[in-house]
């Protein structure tokens, strides 16, 4: 590849919708495996997926378990950004998994405008 590709994947569904919670991790996993830089952004109930202990409870039929996907994405260099007001309103800012970075809107905008493409789930 001539230039490093970068994909931003926004996640807005949480454990209550296992399929739509899992699909962005599937896409992110395929991307990091393909040498694409990945930034996952968690907003709304999507924040719950990076709360410690939650990913292990999420599994959708015919999809790989979410916790294993998350670990692989992190291992292959994927970044996890989490919406600041979303975690505060849920009282989980001190319960996030290692590597999850709390940030605000301008950071998401900066990531998206510098990316090759963005996906929103």
């Amino acid at each position: 590849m001539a230039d490093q590709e970068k994909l931003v994947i926004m996640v807005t569904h949480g454990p209550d919708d296992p399929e739509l919670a899992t699909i962005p991790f599937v896409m992110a996993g395929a991307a990091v495996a393909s040498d694409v830089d990945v930034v996952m952004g968690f907003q709304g109930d999507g924040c719950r997926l990076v709360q410690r202990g939650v990913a292990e409870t999420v599994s959708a039929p015919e999809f790989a378990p979410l916790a294993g996907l998350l670990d692989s994405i992190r291992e292959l260099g994927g970044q996890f950004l989490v919406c600041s007001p979303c975690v505060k309103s849920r009282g989980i800012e001190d319960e996030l998994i290692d590597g999850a970075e709390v940030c605000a809107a301008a950071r998401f905008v900066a990531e998206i405008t510098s990316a090759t493409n963005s996906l929103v789930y």
Partner: protein
Amino acid sequence: MATTHEDLVLDARGLLCPMPIVKTAKAMKELEPGQVLKVMATDRGSITDVPAWCETTGNELLDWHEEDGFLVFHVRKHD
């Protein structure tokens, strides 16, 4: 059928998309350029995923076929 030489074997049988290519990507890091990885998978999505992954990453899909209930791919690491 001619047998393709392999330097490393990855058993990804039972894993669901995209874990076969995630494991493939990790396994390729252990190989030198020009060496060949054999991937065994049961996820039918691998039939399109492995070629797409090879095209994106510049690795070479040498061949693939089906054996007793699973898929076999041979991928050569790019230079």
